[in-house]
């Protein structure tokens, strides 16, 4: 405390610069955690690969998010079944935000390899993690893929929400559209599943479900 000078607001003793700096840093931590509705900073145990992050950041250019208190989320897939490395894979996403937020838009980004045997008929199912067998999956979307490279496949928002679990499993099922492709053509890798080309979900979510505020106001 500087005895000779008085605080210009309250007239009390001023705070030494180092102490003021420490106060400001502590204030910044509290302000950011409160603004992000977090009680403590996240513990990052498995950060995504830097290359995948760089690609994601390119999609989420800084600048204001769409109005209405919305957020944009990019979630990287972990491939759970290593048996088939073609494009009939199981993608697992960890998304705790879907339970408490409203989902406006969802797109699955896949990077197809140049080994594509002609046009591919791709179906995307949602797997119910609690059930087994074929009955445990719901068809979300069907797409035809003819070129290699990145593809953004739109998914129905309604098909991805409604579950209490924070784990989302998507099953990819693909087959050649023309009958002429050999089965061997499907055995080759068709889909990148790791590194900076690993699949990811791009979501636009709202801070709360629409209409909740209205009912609360009523």
């Amino acid at each position, binding site marked *: 405390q500087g005895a000779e000078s008085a*605080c*210009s*607001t309250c007239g009390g003793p001023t705070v030494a610069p180092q102490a003021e*700096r420490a106060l*400001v*840093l502590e*204030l*910044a*931590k509290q*302000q*950011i955690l409160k*603004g*992000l509705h977090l009680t403590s*900073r*996240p*513990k*990052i*145990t*498995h*950060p*995504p690969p830097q290359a995948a*992050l760089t690609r*994601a*950041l390119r999609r*989420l250019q*800084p*600048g*204001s*998010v769409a109005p209405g*208190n*919305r*957020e*944009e*989320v*990019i*979630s*990287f897939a972990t491939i759970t079944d290593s048996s088939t490395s073609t494009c009939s894979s199981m993608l697992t996403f*960890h*998304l*705790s*935000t879907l339970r408490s937020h409203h989902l406006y838009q969802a797109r699955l980004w896949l990077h197809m390899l140049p080994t594509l045997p002609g046009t591919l008929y791709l179906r995307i199912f949602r797997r119910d993690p609690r059930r087994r067998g074929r009955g445990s999956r719901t068809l979300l979307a069907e797409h035809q893929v003819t070129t290699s490279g990145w593809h953004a496949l739109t998914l129905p928002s309604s098909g991805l929400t409604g579950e209490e679990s*924070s784990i989302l499993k998507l099953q990819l099922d693909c087959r050649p559209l023309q009958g002429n492709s050999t089965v061997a053509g499907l055995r080759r890798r068709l889909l990148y599943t790791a590194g900076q080309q690993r699949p990811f979900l791009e979501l636009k979510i709202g801070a709360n479900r629409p209409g909740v505020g209205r009912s609360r106001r009523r």
Partner: protein
Amino acid sequence: TPTCEPDNPLCCRRDHYVDFQDLGWRDWILQPEGYQLNYCSGQCPPHLAGSPGIAASFHSAVFSLLKANNPWPTGTSCCVPTARRPLSLLYLDHNGNVVKTDVPDMVVEACGCS
């Protein structure tokens, strides 16, 4: 709004830039690298009451009320933020997902007397 100078006792905006490196948070806050944590401080003598640091109309309304009712009001006027803007953040959540969000009213742009 004036930014605070050492010898300025009146209501002003005190600027502080906080680098997320200083918080040890660069591992989860991806962008930006830091932000302006500004706050308001300083005295609000009666003739400044209601001066919002930007538009004078509110100030003149309060001032004439003060003159009409009581030149020495008992209540005090405080130095408070009068304009703030959101901060766009890109960060990793505890699942390792990348989240982009706007935190409203994060940066104080102007201060004034209540």
